[in-house]
């Protein structure tokens, strides 16, 4: 049976986790930046920021629910 090796599976799992963390970091930075701009009266960037944030959330959701081999621990 052709199954991926443990090393390859662990590498992919780490990458998915790092991607989820990276997305959250981008979201925090985006929200803080946009909130600052809104407080200064620049509301024109809200639509673009919302769309970008929505895209990032969709990627995070896809990673969290669909990414294979994300679960650690032994397989039964």
């Amino acid at each position, binding site marked *: 049976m052709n199954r991926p090796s443990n090393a390859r599976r662990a590498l992919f*799992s780490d990458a*998915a*986790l790092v991607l989820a963390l990276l997305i959250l970091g981008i979201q925090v930075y985006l929200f803080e930046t946009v909130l600052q701009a809104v407080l200064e*009266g620049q509301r024109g960037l*809200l639509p673009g920021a919302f769309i970008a*944030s929505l895209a*990032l*959330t969709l990627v995070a959701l896809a990673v*969290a629910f669909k990414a294979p081999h994300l679960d650690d621990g032994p397989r039964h």
Partner: protein
Amino acid sequence: MAFWRRSFPVDLAEEGRFSRREFARFLALVSAGFTAGLGWLWWRKKPLDGPAPATGSGPVPLGLAADLKPGQSRLFTFRGPQDRCILLRTPLGELRAYRQACTHLGCAVRFRNDELVCPCHEGVFEIEHGFPIQGPPTRPLSRVALEVRADGTLWAVGDLPAPAGPSPRASLACPLQARREEVA
């Protein structure tokens, strides 16, 4: 055995276990929260971007002009129940009317000590043209045109364009720059 332990019989060895997928789902949930926050900001601010909906476009009576003494103010609604405005008489005796929505985040400004003050973030507007002079607002208040008719009644009749020229804050911060803008 403690009551809560009997009610929630979770194995101690399993309590600390938190799989990567659960963690990733938690991260995605937090990410969705940020998106919802941005969406809420967008949705909440949208009505403030454009002009007020013209539900009632005709002139609005505001009573007798002489009833308002210098330094006094009165609230009224203009284009609709959500279009709240403030009418005031300056210490020099001139009548002014502005929309109450602060140009920063939309809080209602109040007339206090010959200034229009936003209580949310300490924004202050001068009353002659509605320019911001202190705090986070950067744009002047939206001004309402007034008309005193022959019988002495006061009417709100429309919207005035945004005032031109340097704001008092600019002239305070950099007098030279303000003078250049004035000459240009």
